[in-house]
Each structure stands twice: as structure tokens, then as C-alpha cells.
């Protein structure tokens, strides 16, 4: 794991490209939704890219990640391709879950992306359980639960912080605080100003409050917390402040957010910040543009492939109810 100062320039350029791929994928998801090609719903994470890429690049491939219904960025950061994500959104046979999960449930278990969860907070205890399995195996793996600010007011958040602290589990709780619980400012429904970090003291856990649009800051904090967890010193809470560039879901224009606030956060776009960091290190703009172009080409090809992909066989609605693949008497 590398710290901010040690992060190689080539590595940072690669992170930029990963963020660009996520941004392009989210824009494509929005376009496909507006074109009526996405079945169900979407919750886009454009603006949150630095959290996913900063964290994922600080983890081992065998570490476990659990995300929320706003989780496309984490699936991609853990190795899901834009094509299989977009195909899943479009309910195609080639989607990550064959179209059975949809936007809210992206899962890629063979890359240890252990699911996205649409019931707020439901995956926090699961991350604790996966972390516990690592302790039992002595494998040195950690589990990371990403969640939104809204999750900090639900029971499982508090239940899990407590039991993970008591059992010193190697789990990281990473809050993507984008300031809004769906359509309501988190500050208006929460007793403390920093919804995740301020709760840490109640469980005697360390907490870090940071700029979630700064990929280097996220990377450094997650690397430190993971190291701590692997050493047997238990969980860490990381609260990464960030901002959604789209609304809550589907076609929500997000008009409940003050214009000045939106403008301020758009000026602090994580890709813009990463570009500035690269420029500071002397990377020519043309190299960054080339990364953008590669991302664009990748996602354009992904969109085309997902559109062309076959629809799922209707019979799959009656598979996998049970572990043997069947639906048994319920069919």
C-alpha cells in the first residue's frame, strides 16, 4: 500500500482513467435510462468516483467489498466491466447477474464484490460476517462496507459498529456522505454534524473525516485503516464527503439542492481534482486526454455490446430460488 506522497504518477494516471471509465458508464446509464432501455431504476454515482477508486486501489484483490444500490462505481472499481454492468441495468442475459439483480444489486462474487444492497444498511452486518470469516481462516483479508449518509440513522449501522468493535473484526466502514438522504438534507434529520464520524466515539472506534473527492486522500485513509484491520486492531470508520452529480434516482433533477451548493461541488469534481494533481506532477495534458479517450472508447463499445446482447431466457425467472438451481414446488 502506498501513501499519498509515494503514489507513483503512473498509478495516479491509472486511477484517473478508472474514474473516467466510471463517469462515462454513469453518463451512459443515464442516457440509456432516458432512452427507455434500462429496466427498473438507477441510482447514479457520478461524483463519487474518487471514493470507489481510492478505496479499491488500497485493497487486496481478495478483500471483500459490499456496496449500496448506488454502487455501480464500486462494481467497476472491483473489476466488473462497464459492459456487464450496463447489460445488467438493461436486464440482458450477459449482465453481471444475468439480469436478475438489476442496477441496485450488482454482484461479482468471483472478484469479491459481494453485492450491492438496496435496503439501507442491510449489508453492514454482512460485511462484519465476511470479515469474521477472514479471522476464522487467518487469511488477513479485510471487508469494506460502503454506505450512504442515510444509513447512519438505521439500526443495523449501530448494531454492526458495536459487534464489529466488540469482536475487533477487520472491517472498514466507509460512509459516502453526499449530504442528502435521498431528497432530504442529512443534517436536518441527524443529531450530529458528521453522521458517521461523530458516532465513532460511542463505539470507541477511530474515525477519519476526509474529502471524498480527493482520490489520494481516500486511498491513503483506506490503506491505513486496512493495515490496522489486518494487524488485528479492528474496524475504522471513514467518512468521505462527496456529492452526487445526478439526482437521487431515475429522472430526479435534484432541484431541492441550492444552485450555489451544486456549483461549488461541481467545481470540485473528483476528475478535475485528479487532473490538477497530475498537472502538478508534470503530466502533460495530452496524456490525461488520452486516458479520457480510452475511457470513452471502452464505454462506447460497452454500450453497443450491451444493446446488442440477448434478452434473458424467460425460464431464468424460475431458476436459482434454491441452491440446487431449481424453484421446486413454487414453480
Amino acid at each position, binding site marked *: 500500500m502506498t501513501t499519498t506522497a509515494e503514489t507513483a504518477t503512473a498509478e495516479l494516471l491509472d486511477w484517473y482513467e478508472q474514474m473516467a471509465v466510471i463517469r462515462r458508464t454513469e453518463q451512459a446509464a443515464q442516457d440509456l435510462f432516458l432512452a427507455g432501455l434500462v429496466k427498473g431504476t438507477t441510482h447514479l454515482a457520478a461524483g463519487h468516483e474518487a471514493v470507489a477508486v481510492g478505496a479499491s486501489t488500497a485493497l487486496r484483490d481478495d478483500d471483500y467489498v459490499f456496496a449500496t444500490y448506488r454502487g455501480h462505481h464500486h462494481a467497476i472499481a472491483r473489476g466488473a466491466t462497464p459492459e456487464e454492468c450496463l447489460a445488467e441495468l438493461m436486464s440482458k442475459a450477459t449482465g453481471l*447477474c444475468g439480469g436478475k439483480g438489476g442496477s441496485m444489486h450488482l454482484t461479482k462474487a468471483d472478484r469479491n464484490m459481494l453485492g450491492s444492497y438496496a435496503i439501507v444498511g442491510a449489508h453492514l452486518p*454482512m460485511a462484519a460476517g465476511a470479515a469474521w470469516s477472514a479471522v476464522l481462516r487467518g487469511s488477513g483479508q479485510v471487508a469494506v462496507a460502503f454506505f450512504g449518509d442515510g444509513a447512519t440513522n438505521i439500526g443495523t449501522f449501530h448494531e454492526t459498529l458495536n459487534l464489529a468493535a466488540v469482536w475487533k473484526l477487520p472491517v472498514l466502514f466507509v460512509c459516502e456522505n453526499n449530504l442528502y438522504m435521498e431528497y432530504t438534507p442529512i443534517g436536518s434529520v441527524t443529531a450530529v454534524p458528521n453522521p458517521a464520524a461523530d458516532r465513532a466515539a460511542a463505539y470507541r472506534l477511530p474515525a477519519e473525516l476526509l474529502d471524498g473527492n480527493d482520490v489520494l486522500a481516500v486511498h491513503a485513509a483506506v490503506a491505513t485503516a486496512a493495515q490496522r484491520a489486518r494487524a488485528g486492531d479492528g474496524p475504522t470508520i471513514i467518512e468521505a464527503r462527496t456529492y452526487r452529480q445526478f439526482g437521487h434516482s431515475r429522472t430526479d433533477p435534484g432541484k431541492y439542492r441550492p444552485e450555489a451548493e451544486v456549483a461549488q461541488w461541481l467545481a470540485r469534481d473528483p476528475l478535475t481534482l485528479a487532473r490538477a494533481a497530475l498537472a502538478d506532477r508534470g503530466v502533460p495534458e495530452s496524456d490525461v486526454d488520452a486516458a479520457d479517450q480510452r475511457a470513452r472508447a471502452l464505454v462506447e463499445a460497452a454500450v453497443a455490446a450491451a444493446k446488442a446482447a440477448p434478452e434473458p431466457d424467460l425460464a431464468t425467472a424460475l431458476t436459482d430460488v434454491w441452491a440446487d438451481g431449481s424453484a421446486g*414446488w413454487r414453480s
Partner: protein
Amino acid sequence: MAAENLTLGKALNSGLRKAMEDDPKVIMMGEDIGKLGGVFRITDGLQKDFGEDRVIDTPLAESGIVGTAVGLAIRGYRPVCEIQFDGFVYPAFDQIVSQLAKMHYRSQGQVRLPVVIRIPFGGGIGAVEHHSESPETYFVHTAGLKVVTCASPVDAYWMIQQAIASDDPIVFLEPKRRYWEKGEVDTAAPAAQVFPLHASRVARPGTDCTVLAYGPMVKVALDAATAAEEDGRALEVIDLRTLSPLDLTPVYESVRRTGRCVVVHEAPATLGMGAEVAARVTEECFYSLESPVLRVAGFDTPYPASRLEEEYLPDLDRVLDAVDRSFGW
């Protein structure tokens, strides 16, 4: 032959012990299950013998318990969660119904959920609301969950082991008022002699009326059959054992012979197991039925105060009354 005379509670304890011996991936978790051995002592001695890593006293946090079990299960373990009393399962309802039941389906089989949720259920011990409930229908209604219940020590011993070995999530309902009742258990029975988990069983053969029961009501049904014999009626009692998936083939076969069917359960009648069974028996056996399928069930009220629970719970008289009504059609 290693037949032992065990209480149902001890048979469960022995079955859990055997499951832990057979598979190091089996882990027990729940409130007070370690040092105390559980409020009903079903996990008595397990922490002492298998260690605090495999038998864990958890915080009082049912959603956290089941959610943690889900995380363990999708990474290769076989957690067995004890819910202290039936009514305490509702804080874990989201984890069981929205996650445990559905993750295999929605991930297209990428993850497996071999979790057993043990729940002491039903009334009859002088407890009250939250401690005497029969929540089976909620779980049976949820695709992706299997639901079973044992009625005898021998079933308790084997069914708990079969449930733990299953790759599907299973809600395992334990008839708490029967924990102290004894029966013969051959703990060394060869596998071929062990009855399958997802199968109903004729508990007492008869010719005149089919009486269906499960869990704590099997004894009531059997007692009713003994009493009916004095009236010259031979009731056939079937222990359903598995509520999801239901195994109604022996039931259809029985009802085609007897022409009459009474379903008994403690849970309220409305949308209970009896409703589902009545619908299916009617569809399958319509031309054999001499009378409608009748239900003997708890009332559609909250579980009553303990002084009133004997009025609430189906008993021998109510079962015999239903049989009489079935004949009076």
C-alpha cells in the same frame, strides 16, 4: 443400535453437537447461547467443548446476528443462529426475508446461503406475547426460504443435522412446549434409515379422517386420534414436518382414502398453513372430499395473556369437534 431415551431439547443439543463435530465450518451464534447454553439450554456445553470462536454469545441485536451470519455464509461457513423467542425474530425480518432468502436468486447463484435460523416457537409454557408466537407463515410465504419443524426427539436429532447440512437457508422451528418430552433416538441409525428432511410422514395410520399437524400440535392430533378410537373413528394423523417446501403427496393419498381433512396449528387461522393446505387439497382431491377441509387454529387475536392461552391453543376437544363437524356434513 444406540437407542437413547432423550428429551426433545437434549436431542437437539446432541444433533447440534454432532453437526459441529462433523463440519468445522458450522458456527453457532445467538444471545446467551455460550456460557449459559441458551435460555432453554439447547446449546448447553457446546461453547465449553468447541470454543468461543465457534459458539458465540452475541449482542442483543437480531438483525446484526442474522446479517453477520449471511456474511459468514457467503464466504463458506454454516452459521446456526438461535433466536431466543419466536417474537424476537421480527427485528431480523429484513435480513431473513429481503437478504437471506433472495441473495441466491438475485445473484444468479453466485453466492450460497447455508444458514439455519433456530426459533423456539409456539405457546403452552405460560409465557406471553413475543414468547409464544407461531410466525411460520411469514417465512413460508417467502420464496427462497425453507421452513421445517420437528415434533419428536428423533426428528429433532436428525432434522437439525439435515438442516445444517443443507445449502439452502432454513428456518428451523422448535416446538418449545415439547422440549422436555422424551422419546427414543437411535443416534447411530444408518443414513438409509433416517427420514428425509423435506418429507411429511404418517404418524398414525387411519381410515376415516385425515388430521394434519406439525410441531407442537402433532401430539394434540395424536391424542385426539386415541380419543376418537373410543368413538370408533380411526383418524390418520400426518406430521407435515416440512412447511416449505410442502410435501403433500402423502396427504393427497390419505384424503383420497378418508374423504375428510382437518388441519391443526397454533398460528391464527387467517392465511395460515391450513389455508394453503385446504386450497391444495381441494384442488387435488375435490372429487374424493366428503366435506370441506376444516381448520383448527389460533384465533385472529394477538397471543393472549397466559391465563387465557389454554383457550387460545387448539386442544384435543377442538380437534375432535372439527372431526365431528367433518362427519356431520
